[in-house]
């Protein structure tokens, strides 16, 4: 049902809120819902809906910080970067939470996820001197809270 509402919302956005197209949109939304239910069955992870705005806010603020951080480094004449690779263990469960973490980390300050194999995450860091571990753990906590899962580790 939530899927249906989400698809209908996207339809409404795409048609610029045209009221006459909405009746057709309901039919399309039903079809898309059925097809998506067949193609992507329930993965067992459910978003905790009331935590989505908080997560989005965290993400937007952090990605703005990331942009400013790279811009500051670029504009400094000495180019203060110390790139390097760093491997970490991810405590999130397999599937959607892990992929979300990897994708979100690519947009957070200083990190870029390169490879995710089982629970080993290989990252490229813009500055290996930054407190990266704490940052990754914070993002991990946020993703875990978003999906309402337990990471199994006292973080």
């Amino acid at each position: 049902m939530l899927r249906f509402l989400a698809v209908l919302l996207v339809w409404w956005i795409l048609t610029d809120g045209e009221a006459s197209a909405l009746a057709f949109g309901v039919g399309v939304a039903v079809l898309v819902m059925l097809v998506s239910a067949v193609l992507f069955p329930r993965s067992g992870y459910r978003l905790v809906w009331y935590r989505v705005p908080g997560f989005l806010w965290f993400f937007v603020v952090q990605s703005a910080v990331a942009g400013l951080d790279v811009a500051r480094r670029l504009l400094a004449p000495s180019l203060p970067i110390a790139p390097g690779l760093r491997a970490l263990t991810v405590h999130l469960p397999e599937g959607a939470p892990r992929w979300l973490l990897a994708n979100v980390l690519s947009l957070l300050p200083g990190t870029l996820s390169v490879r995710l194999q089982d629970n080993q995450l290989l990252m490229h860091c813009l500055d290996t001197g930054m407190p990266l571990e704490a940052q990754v753990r914070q993002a991990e906590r946020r993703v875990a809270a978003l999906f309402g899962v337990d990471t199994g580790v006292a973080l």
Partner: protein
Amino acid sequence: MSLVLALVAIFLLLTLMAGLWRIWHGPKDVDRMLAAQLFGTTGVALLLVLAEAMATPALRDVALVLAVLAIVATVAFVTRVAQIDRPSADRKEGADDTP
């Protein structure tokens, strides 16, 4: 106000032309692909600005299509030209935007 929009559009176009240098000179194929990605994001912004400046909301749909298809070229490059699928464990990569 439309003066600011026009100036912004000109500036973004100049940024694009700077990206051309990277496509031509880029030491590796990957760098060329990155420049193409820059073209995608800058093109989206440019189309959105032009949609306001020329008062044609249909251009937002063009920007939407461009944002969707920009990734397709990158995926094609990564799977075909760079061929990341040597170890079979990494074949999951294409599916990570589905959830």
